[in-house]
Structure formats: structure tokens, C-alpha cells
């Protein structure tokens, strides 16, 4: 157990370091996904950008120190102002820029539960996070319980709540005409996802459910913007679904047999995936989050 704690501790420090990188060095890469849709990659969750005559809509905004760089990248695409921002969930690497955008007059919208999380202190041990309430300018000004649709830029963009999966307030954003979907962190492409399992948030079975609901809405031409990882396709989502299903099935079986976390980790439930998928996130930490989808998490 002690060894595991050390491992977790090392991982957490690694994660914390990753959370506070030298943002000066971060470069924003702008990728055109469709006629009016771009992805900005930098540090943190992928940013979706809708541009056109009605102005700019952003999906997520990474970290506060990057806002100026995002603004620059958007300026290179369009001279229209940023009017709307949607948060796919409450995590710091997706809402970090909110306060900057809110102060600039951008209308921030998210699911009801994102607002609830952002207005209360969130302690997440597995993510080494202790997040105090956000200042008012960073908060969504309008929240929805089910779905909202933006009728802008010649398209219909629907932000819709998906099952409790990565958190309890995840949304995906669907561009109806462009056939593009931003999945938030429910889908991480070719890598293990984070599952925020504490505080009555997400679970691996929820991720499986949300992905199973996503797949029938995709066709071979759909561009899928994951929360993390490269712009993907239905095939990538299906591969991810298989990985999630595999690990959920194996870990559930072991957990039901009464195995401890250490035993589950030692059983290597992701053995055939580790080489490829473990490059971005350590397997053991992912298995831990999967495990606590079947066994209630208790802070140590």
C-alpha cells in the first residue's frame, strides 16, 4: 500500500507539474476542421472555434495565461469578435480562460452542474486538485439542464448533456451542418482519459454509456474533436470504446472478487493497450480511476 502511495504521489507531482507548465513556451496550433470550424491546440483541452458572419463561438478555453495567445490565433482566422463560449465541463484545463473571456463581454454557457461545481470548492484527490470557487466573471451566465442550440454562422450548434461520465456536467457540442462534434473529455483519442470519480461525479460505466450514445450519431465523414488528442473519426471512437469496455469489464470482475486496488493494478487489466495508449497517461492512475467506478472512493 505504501508503495502504491508513493507511486500515486509521484504521479500526482507529475500531474501538478504538468498543470503548471511554463505557459510562455506554449504555442497555439490552429487546425481547420471544416469550412467555418477550427481547433486550437495548446496546453489543456482542445478548443473548438466556430467562425462566420455572426461572430466567434469557442468551446473551452484551456488556461488563463494562454488567453492572449488564443486571441492572437483567433485574429489570424477572423476579425469578428468572440461572442460566445461553451464549457464542456468544469475542469481547470477547459475553463481556465473563462475569467478573461467573461471580462471581455463573452457570454459563457454550460450545463447547470458546471455552474454548481465552479461556485463551490472542489477537492479532487486523484487529480491533486483543490479548486476554490471561481470569480463571478468566470462563471457561466446561462446554464441548461438538457440542451441548447446556437443558430449562428450558417449552422446549428447543439450543446447537449451526456450521461454522467467524465464528470457530472459533461456536454458534447454537435455542428449539425458541418458534421463535426466536440466531445469534451468523455473521449480522449488514442490515450487513457481522466475520469473524475470523486464527489459524485463520473465513472467508467458512464463513459461507456456516453460513448455508446455517441457512436450512432457519427458517420464515416464526421470529424470528431476529442477533449484531448488529435482530431479523430468514428473509427477512433470505436477503438476507444473497445479499450474502455475491456478495462471496465476486467476491473469490474476483479473488484467484485474483492481484489484490492493494488491487486487490480498488478493484474494489468490494460496489458495489450499500455504500450500504445499509456504514452500520455500512466496506466496505474487510469486503472485507479476505473477501479473507483466500482468501489466507492475514500480519501486516504
Amino acid at each position, binding site marked *: 500500500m505504501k508503495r502504491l502511495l508513493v507511486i500515486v504521489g509521484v504521479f500526482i507531482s507529475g500531474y501538478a507539474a504538468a498543470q503548471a507548465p511554463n505557459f510562455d513556451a506554449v504555442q497555439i496550433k490552429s487546425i481547420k476542421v471544416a469550412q467555418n470550424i477550427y481547433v486550437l491546440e495548446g496546453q489543456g483541452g482542445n478548443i473548438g472555434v466556430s467562425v462566420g458572419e455572426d461572430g466567434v463561438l469557442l468551446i473551452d478555453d484551456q488556461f488563463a495565461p494562454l488567453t492572449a495567445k488564443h486571441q492572437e490565433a483567433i485574429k489570424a482566422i477572423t476579425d469578428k469578435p468572440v461572442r460566445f463560449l461553451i464549457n464542456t465541463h468544469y475542469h481547470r484545463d477547459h475553463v481556465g480562460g473563462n475569467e478573461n473571456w467573461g471580462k471581455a463581454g463573452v*457570454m459563457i454557457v454550460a450545463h447547470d452542474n458546471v*455552474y454548481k461545481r465552479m461556485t463551490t470548492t472542489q477537492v479532487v484527490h486523484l487529480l491533486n486538485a483543490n479548486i476554490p470557487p471561481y470569480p463571478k466573471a468566470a462563471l457561466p451566465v*446561462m446554464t*441548461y*439542464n*438538457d440542451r*441548447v*442550440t446556437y*443558430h449562428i454562422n450558417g449552422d446549428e450548434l447543439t450543446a447537449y448533456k451526456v450521461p454522467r461520465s467524465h464528470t457530472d456536467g459533461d456536454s458534447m457540442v454537435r455542428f449539425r451542418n458541418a458534421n463535426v462534434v466536440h466531445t469534451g473529455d468523455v473521449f480522449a483519442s488514442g490515450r487513457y482519459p481522466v475520469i473524475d470519480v470523486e464527489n459524485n461525479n463520473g465513472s467508467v460505466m458512464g463513459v461507456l454509456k456516453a460513448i455508446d450514445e455517441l457512436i450512432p450519431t457519427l458517420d464515416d465523414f464526421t470529424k470528431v474533436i476529442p477533449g484531448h488528442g488529435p482530431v479523430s473519426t468514428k473509427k477512433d471512437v470505436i477503438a476507444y470504446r473497445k479499450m474502455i469496455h475491456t478495462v471496465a469489464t476486467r476491473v469490474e470482475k476483479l473488484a467484485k472478487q474483492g481484489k484490492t486496488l493494488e491487486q487490480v493494478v498488478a493484474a494489468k487489466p490494460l496489458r495489450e493497450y499500455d504500450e500504445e495508449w499509456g504514452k500520455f497517461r500512466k496506466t496505474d492512475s487510469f486503472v485507479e480511476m476505473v477501479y473507483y467506478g466500482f468501489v466507492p472512493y475514500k480519501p486516504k
Partner: protein
Amino acid sequence: MKLALVFLSMLFCMFAAAQSDRFDKVEIKTTRLTQNLYLLEGEGGNIGVSAGDDGVFVIDDQFAPLTARILAAIKAISDKPVRFLINTHWHFDHTGGNENFGKAGAVIVAQDNVKKRLSTKTAIEFFKSAYGPTAAAGLPVITFKDTVTFHLNGDEATAIHVPNAHTDGDSIIHFRAGNVVHMGDTYFNGLYPFIDTGTNGSVKGMIAAADRALAITDDTSKIIPGHGPLSNKAELKAYRDMLAKVYANVDAMVKARKTLAQVIAARPTKDYDAKWGNGFLKPDQFAEIVYASAVKNR
């Protein structure tokens, strides 16, 4: 055909003139309901206003010729900009100012079906009239399916979709801290309500909308009807019971295969006419609407 067109256009001009005469005399009356909430009355649906540090949030906007006066009334309350406008439903006496507000920079929000109705030419069958399509600047930019909540001016204002009530896109707006509900046209205070069965309104939905509001209000709540004076829970309850009773009367006759003429002749509203029958709809007209709704529900 040409003659008909000429006649129609003459009629239209007369109508337009009558309209502007009608609006010339309209004054906007402001009533303060709470610290941050106001009722504006002019011509058309009652307007709700939330004004405070975060800006101005407006519910419905009556007719286009009144926008300047409505904005002046808002200016007298607050020097903050109108950031958001919500439409309780698609009808012209609640959305007529949309294009003006949209051009002035307000983000227009409504239930999904409001956008659908405003985007095309839509008839109100009962009045044999048709409207729209609304200009792009007057269309809702963000629409919702079930609820949206505005976190503004120290309050939480939730727009709750009430299905198939006055139309198929109605919302009631609940200000939790202010303890105020704007009912849109699911509530006519002191007069028989119009129910637009042609765009999928129904008496049952109207009753359900009233029940929804009764469940979230108390004796100190202020209730803004779509039409009629500011109201309260006891009055809303009386209205709800009137709707339920008239519907039961008419539905029993529909079940017995009575015709519309027979239903009207039976005066199913007679117990209520003294209180509710002196407004916009006469008792026979209201009975006809209730009949249409009961038939549709069969």
C-alpha cells in the same frame, strides 16, 4: 386577381395606418416588483425586466413601433445595456420588437419551437391571420429544449418550457430570489385566454403550466400574466380551476359526440362569464377554442 391584390394592399395600408394610430397613444407603464424586477405594460404582452449590476434582461417585447418607448422606460430604470431578451412564445404581440432588440445587440433566447415558428410564415388559424418570417436579426440566437437558467443580478431566473400550452413553444420564467414568475400567455388574468391550437397549444397544457407555476410559488409570490394586471397565487389558482372546469364541461360533450354548435348552445362557460368573459375573447369564442382542443385530444 389584380383587383384582389389592389384591394388587399389597400387593406394592408389601412391596417398599417390603424396600427400606427393605435401605437401612437401607447404609454409604457413601469411597476417595480422587487429590488431588481419590473413589470412594463404598454400594448401587447406584459414585459418583465430584470435590471442590476450584470445588465438588463428582458422578457418579451410587444410590438416593433413601441421599442423606442420600451427602451426609454428601461433607461429610466437602469443605464446598463439590454444583454438578453427571452421570448415566452412566438406570437407577434410578444416578439414584435425582436428585430430592434437584436440589432441593438441583445442576445435573443427562446424555446426551440419559437425559433421554428418565427423562421417561417406561421398562421394563427383562429384569427385567420399569418405572420413572418421574422427578419434574421429578430430570430432567437440561442434556443433551448427544456430549461435555461440565467445567473444574473443576484438571482437565478429559470425559463421552464411548458409543453403544448398556449402554443408549442411556451416558457414560464421563475425568478427564485425575487419570488416572481412571468407566465407568458399561459396565463391571462381576468379574461378568457386565447389558446393557439393551430400551433399545438392545448387546454390540458395550459392547466399543466398553471400547476407547474403553482408548485413553485407561495402566497407572497408575484405572478406576471401574459395579459391582464399583475397577479398572485390565489388568482392563478382560480384561473386554473376555471380552465379545468370549462374543459371538463366541453370534453364531456365532445365525448357524447356533440357538435360545435351544440357545445356553444349549451354555454359550457356560463358560470365563469361574468368574471372572465368581458375581455379579448367572448364566451362563445372561448368555448370554440376549448372545443377544438378537446377534439384534438381525442
